[in-house]
């Protein structure tokens, strides 16, 4: 074989290996779970409860991330300020933070004896072992995914388009809403999808900070873990449900961003 052909074969092998390895666990979940078992698992009230809680808390966390993260990412992308690089690194920190460490950190910060614990208590806010605590944990671990993508998407908006909007009589806020966000839309949606996916799968930080109480803090990943030791097939079926929900989400995003010819992220 000639050199270039050997190289092509090596590339092909690497890709094949990656695809097989990355999809194998998902394939295995569905091979071991019949569709009937999948539907049946939804008949279990605790499974339905966990699914409802997962959807509610992740949706709320995502709303917070998008509402607060969008202007923050816009600021990081478009303004040159002192210490910008430091800020950019700091907001990405949770990406490399082990989830268990994130949970401990949340307890140390917002727990009853945490540095802000007293302030929260006086304000009447209870987070530990509460549904609100789940949302806080989700925001912490998922927000960096959105911030990163959103910042990249905003950076890719041509400065001349922003300038054009201004010369055409639109102020800065109006330009952000009418030009910047629509142009960056595919990147923003991709970032939101990533963050949502991460939040749906969140386990460690939630467990440490909010615990695993049915109907209050037990999201689907925690419910899977609880079943894992006592009823493996049930854990498998619930995993399949979570995979389906996540996959549907990813697909919806692809379809949403597929139409319209706006600037792609990165």
């Amino acid at each position, binding site marked *: 074989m000639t050199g270039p052909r050997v190289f092509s074969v090596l590339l092909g092998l690497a890709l094949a290996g990656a695809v097989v390895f990355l999809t194998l666990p998902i394939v295995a979940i569905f091979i071991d779970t019949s569709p009937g078992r999948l539907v049946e698992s939804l008949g279990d009230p605790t499974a339905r409860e966990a699914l409802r809680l997962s959807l509610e808390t992740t949706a709320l966390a995502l709303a917070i991330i998008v509402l607060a993260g969008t202007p923050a990412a816009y600021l990081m992308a478009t303004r040159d300020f002192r210490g910008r690089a430091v800020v950019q690194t700091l907001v990405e920190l949770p990406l490399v933070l082990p989830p268990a460490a994130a949970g401990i950190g949340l307890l140390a910060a917002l727990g009853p004896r945490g540095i802000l614990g007293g302030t929260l208590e006086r304000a009447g806010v209870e987070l530990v072992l509460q549904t609100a605590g789940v949302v806080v944990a989700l925001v912490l671990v998922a927000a960096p995914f959105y911030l990163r993508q959103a910042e990249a998407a905003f950076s890719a908006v*041509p400065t001349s388009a922003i300038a054009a909007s201004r010369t055409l009589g*639109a*102020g800065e806020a109006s330009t952000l809403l009418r030009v910047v966000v629509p142009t960056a839309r595919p990147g923003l949606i991709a970032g939101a999808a990533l963050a949502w996916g991460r939040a749906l799968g969140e386990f460690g930080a939630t467990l440490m900070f909010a615990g695993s109480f049915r109907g209050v803090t037990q999201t689907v990943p925690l419910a899977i873990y609880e079943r894992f030791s006592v009823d493996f097939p049930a854990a498998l079926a619930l995993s399949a449900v979570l995979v389906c929900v996540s996959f549907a989400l990813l697909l919806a995003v692809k379809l949403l961003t597929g139409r319209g010819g706006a600037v792609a992220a990165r």
Partner: protein
Amino acid sequence: MAPLLHVEARTQLGDLELETALVARTGECLALAGPSGAGKSTVLRIVAGLLRPEHGVVRCDGRVWLDTTAGVDLPPERRCCGFVFQDYALFEHLTARQNVAYGLRDRPREERRVRADGLLERFELLSRADARPATLSGGERQRVAVARALAPEPNVLLLDEPLSALDARTRARAARELAAVLRDAGRPAVLVTHDFTEAALLGDRVAVLDRGRVVQEGEPAELAAAPASAFVADFTGAVVLTGAARPGPGGLTEVELDGGGRVRSTYQAEGHVAVSLFPWEILLDPPEATATSSARNQLVAEIVSLTTVGGRVRVGLAASQPLAAEVTADAVRELDLRVGGRVVASWKATATRLIVV
């Protein structure tokens, strides 16, 4: 006529030290010409309020937009400048019609529609009104950009290299359209270009900018004929004359020059044209010499200036319109060329390029 747009700016931007003062009058197009990095676009950005100079004053129609000593600095949205960006900066998520209507947001819906459609029609874009910019051709995108800038009836028009993104064929048409836009604009316009021929075609006056400073300002023909420095002489390159073209004898085009005189060209054109030729294509002879030559074009002219440009000498000539020839220093000595002397300038019909304006 009172000056309408008045710009003074002094600022340091990286390596560029900008120090300029410019005036554009109502209905006049000031062309800012110069090599890249000379600070041309920076001047436009200062006028539009997209860039704040360290020191500067911008006044338009008696109103102060910027006065750094008085602490006045209106944001771009309150200056209302029609800005045509070099890359056109169209909003890719909006249709052509929505792009044009973007600056009309505070008008009643009906007025907005009528104005946008009127502009789309004028620029022959009505059939493409619902297309997104990504699907438009280069020429169409340029027209959308111009229509969008004109829509809110801006105080001034600012055009940053509006033709440079177009291919040669589209550019000729776009240049004609732009010339018409500038003619009926009824407001001051500042056009930035790195191409002197373009500046001469579209600008009533040309200011040549080099390293942040205006090195010469005047009518295009004046600049080509009597460049103030070797830099301007080099930059202006072609001589530009204007006149009316019609078919002449022998398949040639005959151009009646504005102000008198007649030249012939092998280029086909009719109507108002710019005649462009290079100074090194012009031969100079003593006025008494009437030797027959293959040069079809001859004009008797008076020498108004002699500028040394590298190894050449640019000879500024006053005929019905100013023009310039470039000859060697030896030729100047041999022909005894001096300011105030008379010569016959001649050049070939094949060197006489015509540009319809």
